[in-house]
């Protein structure tokens, strides 16, 4: 049995598939969030001392940061596929991902500021991680700005795809240079709790919340994708019956 890899590469066939899956993703996200928040607030009291209730912020801060980075990678993956296979839908997916990715980046900065105020005493500190998140936000914004600055769709897609790829290639160098500004001796990395030292219950709650955010991302991104498909393919034959049937 040969698989037709490109079966759902046509906007017309993916549109209904995306539509059916959105409610599942969103409901899943809501349930996972409830479960994760319950776990984070009520299953961890014996671990946290009375003073450290602000620790709860980590249940949205870390998942937001993870998603912001993961979504950028996925964006670039679709950009590459678009450039290689010249499939319209891939570019549309990349464009649909960007605002959600930027949102999570901003969220990680916002929650990070509150986290920093409580645990280090300052709203902002130029520590490598937060600075890297700031740069990531700039990369997302640059991608969206370039997309909107070019009127011609095809050129806009390909130009922003190239920009995103260049950004991804340079991210390790940028992050590394922020992390290690003195090549003679890499300054001790800011207090970094590696995942191994995080207590199991807290880690569980973080992971559940990350899954929740991920499921939410699928939902919102597919919703945005459907909007993009409607806008871009509005002159196609299959749009007309679809629009009429929803009225």
């Amino acid at each position, binding site marked *: 049995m040969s698989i037709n890899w490109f079966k759902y590469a046509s906007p017309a066939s993916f549109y209904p598939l995306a539509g059916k899956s959105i409610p599942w993703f*969103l409901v899943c996200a809501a349930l996972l969030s409830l479960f994760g928040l319950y776990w984070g607030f009520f299953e961890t009291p014996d671990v946290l001392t009375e003073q450290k209730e602000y620790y709860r912020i980590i249940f949205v801060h870390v998942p937001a940061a993870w998603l912001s980075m993961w979504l950028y990678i996925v964006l670039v993956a679709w950009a590459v596929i678009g450039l290689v296979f010249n499939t319209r839908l891939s570019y549309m997916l990349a464009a649909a991902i960007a605002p959600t990715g930027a*949102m999570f980046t*901003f969220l990680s900065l916002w*929650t990070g500021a509150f986290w920093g105020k409580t645990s280090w005493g300052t709203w902002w500190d130029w520590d490598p991680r937060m600075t890297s998140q700031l740069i990531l936000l700039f990369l997302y914004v640059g991608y969206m700005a370039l997309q909107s600055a070019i009127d011609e769709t095809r050129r806009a897609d390909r130009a922003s795809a190239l920009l995103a790829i260049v950004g991804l290639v340079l991210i390790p160098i940028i992050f590394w240079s922020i992390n290690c500004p003195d090549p003679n001796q890499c300054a001790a990395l800011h207090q970094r709790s590696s995942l191994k030292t995080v207590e199991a219950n807290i880690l569980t709650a973080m992971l559940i919340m990350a899954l929740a955010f991920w499921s*939410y991302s699928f939902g919102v991104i597919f*919703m945005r994708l459907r909007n993009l498909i409607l*806008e871009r393919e509005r002159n196609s034959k299959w749009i007309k019956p679809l*629009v009429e049937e*929803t*009225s």
Partner: protein
Amino acid sequence: MTLSEFFSMNGYGFYVWSSFGMTALLMLGELILVKKHNRTILKRLRRIIRLQAEQETSL
């Protein structure tokens, strides 16, 4: 944990709830915005189709 303890988070309530609040605001807000955009697009497309149909019948 009592309800009041839950809200005050041992004095850190402002920080914890500002974080969770912004999270909820942005995520729900995004959903609402995209949904609204969807309705606008469908409305516009319906209007275009209607106008095209009227044009064709009047020819």
